């Protein structure tokens, strides 16, 4: 199923179902009015779009291009790892490590050792500057870990 309208309307209907179930209990009238109206709107427009696309007669256009999903997935996964590891290894250390991994993933040129070391040193300096800026100047309490 590679038509964007169909996929998006199905996903939206799924969201409506999930959120709608949450509203079943524990919400009084004033908290309910607005979300319920929004969910109805979403449900109707998604259903309408779905029906209109299917009923159109011609075959739905296959207009979803999903390039290199593998790379995308890895990049996002690395970011998730970054967030989790922050609480253990501390902000700075995790950032340098994950940054390095990202570099390797993104650019084949970086995989030769000399280039990599040069880049990593630059990265370590850049991250240190940002870290100092945020934690001392802006007083944002960044997660502490093994080094800092």
């Amino acid at each position, binding site marked *: 199923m590679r038509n964007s309208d169909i996929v*998006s309307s199905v996903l939206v209907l799924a969201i409506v179902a999930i*959120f709608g179930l949450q509203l079943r209990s524990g919400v009084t009238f004033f*908290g309910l*009015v607005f979300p319920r109206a929004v969910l109805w709107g*979403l449900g109707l427009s998604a259903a309408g779009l779905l029906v209109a696309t299917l009923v159109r007669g011609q075959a739905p256009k296959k207009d979803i291009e999903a390039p290199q999903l593998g790379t*995308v997935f890895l990049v*996002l996964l690395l970011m*998730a790892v970054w967030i989790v590891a922050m609480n253990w290894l501390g902000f700075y250390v995790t950032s340098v490590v994950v940054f390095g991994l990202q570099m390797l993933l993104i650019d084949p040129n970086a995989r030769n050792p000399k280039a990599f070391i040069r880049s990593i040193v630059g990265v370590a300096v850049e991250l240190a500057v940002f870290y100092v800026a945020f934690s001392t100047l802006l007083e944002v309490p960044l997660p502490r870990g093994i080094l800092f």
Partner: protein
Amino acid sequence: MSSALSGIASILTPTTLLLMLGGTVMGLIAGALPGISATMAVALLVPFTFSMPPLQGLALLGAIYMSAIYGGSFSAILINTPGTPSSIGTTFDGYPMAKQGRGWEAIIVATVGSVIGGIFGVIALAFLAPPLAKVALKFGPPEYFWVAVFGLTIIATLCSKSLVKGIMGGLLGLLIGTVGIAPIGGDVRFTFGMPALQGGVELVGTMIGLFCLPEVLAMILEGSDKRYERMDIGRRQGILWEVTKKVLAQPQNLLRSSIIGTVVGIIPGAGGSIANLVSYNEAMRASKHPEKFGTGLIDGVIATETANNATVGGGLIPLLTLGVPGTPVDAVIYAGLLIHGLQPGARLFTHFGDITYGFIFSIFVATVMMLPVGLLLGNALHKLVSQLSVRILAPSIMFLSIIGSYAIRNNIMDVWVMLACGTLGFLLKILKVDPAPVVLGLVLGPLAEQGFVQGLLIGRAQGIGYGIFFTRPVSILLIVMTVVSLVWPFVSAWSRKRREKGAGANA
């Protein structure tokens, strides 16, 4: 009069001017960093002003405020991420311009627009504060509801090609905005068992996720280091004056955007985030070639940046005259005033006249300072971003996204939300759904809900229930504006087709 003059004289001392210069630079950087909003930047510096004489402290805060709102345009143009919510609309045309190699041009446009809008707002503040403040008070809950609905009709203009998807996006944004504690009644909604979600979904994290991450991913997938084409076109000699002339050749756009910004700033609680979107919408409607918006038209950047800087002066109007903050940043400035012993109200203009007029003048000076400082910084930033290799730039942006979304509320949940929105944003890109309506829904949702439920409560108390939304003069005006805004794209497209058919028949 004499107090005003003495206030102005105090501003024109070397220490104060130097302080304001520093404030302008800091504000620019803070605004350009997604995750540091203008509110945060000002809040961080309030304690530093305690040891300073009140006027100096206020001048510093004012300088930061004005330049932070302007600074948001840098990241909006260069990496498609609004540095502050006031620059959401700048991404619509600013980023395409950057991709076409006209990034420097976009920065110039943003700078000139911001300075002009800022000055307009300050002039309104200096000379029209009392009557304008009264206008602000006419807005009660039903009016806020209609303002929000009017804002949402922008979706119709932005997404005229795929209206249903735009509506779905907007509704999705509204839904995400309801996560957390209901504004009326305090019910806990959609937290899925996670207490950290009681605080709701934070706007800036969502923006970073929806706008920035998909572009970073695209950058990575494209792989090449040529992210902005044909840089040589964009940087020739004399381009500064050339572009400035182009901006000044749009007086109606500049004037209209400044007025919109000032008025939205005056409305308590509404600030740059709403002003820039409304202004963009109006610019599109007034233009002879609305379909070119979104492809890199300077009109769009002028509209958003002029309006958002005009909200600075506008927002201070109700704050100084009535003690009612016009924008969220004004609430922080209010605290700063109180701590220095200055109470808003009539006394501020009489008893403390020198401080007040000095403050207003200082904002004017700060706005003018933005011109050279902004151009220098923007130039440097543009060169930096366009020349860094992808393998450094992409992770750097990701790093900034994480640190930025954490910095807003010191809440790790916001970072997860940012990542989730990034995934969502990528998905939306594939599914050809525009992310802008989602952010619109998120910005306007709380305003709409509060206005609706509060209005309903008042209406019931008055015995007319839902009728309250249709029986008040300002509401009716807003309803008319909403309907026009909604219907206009279809009417104009229809009339254009008729004209073409007519021309074709005569040929």
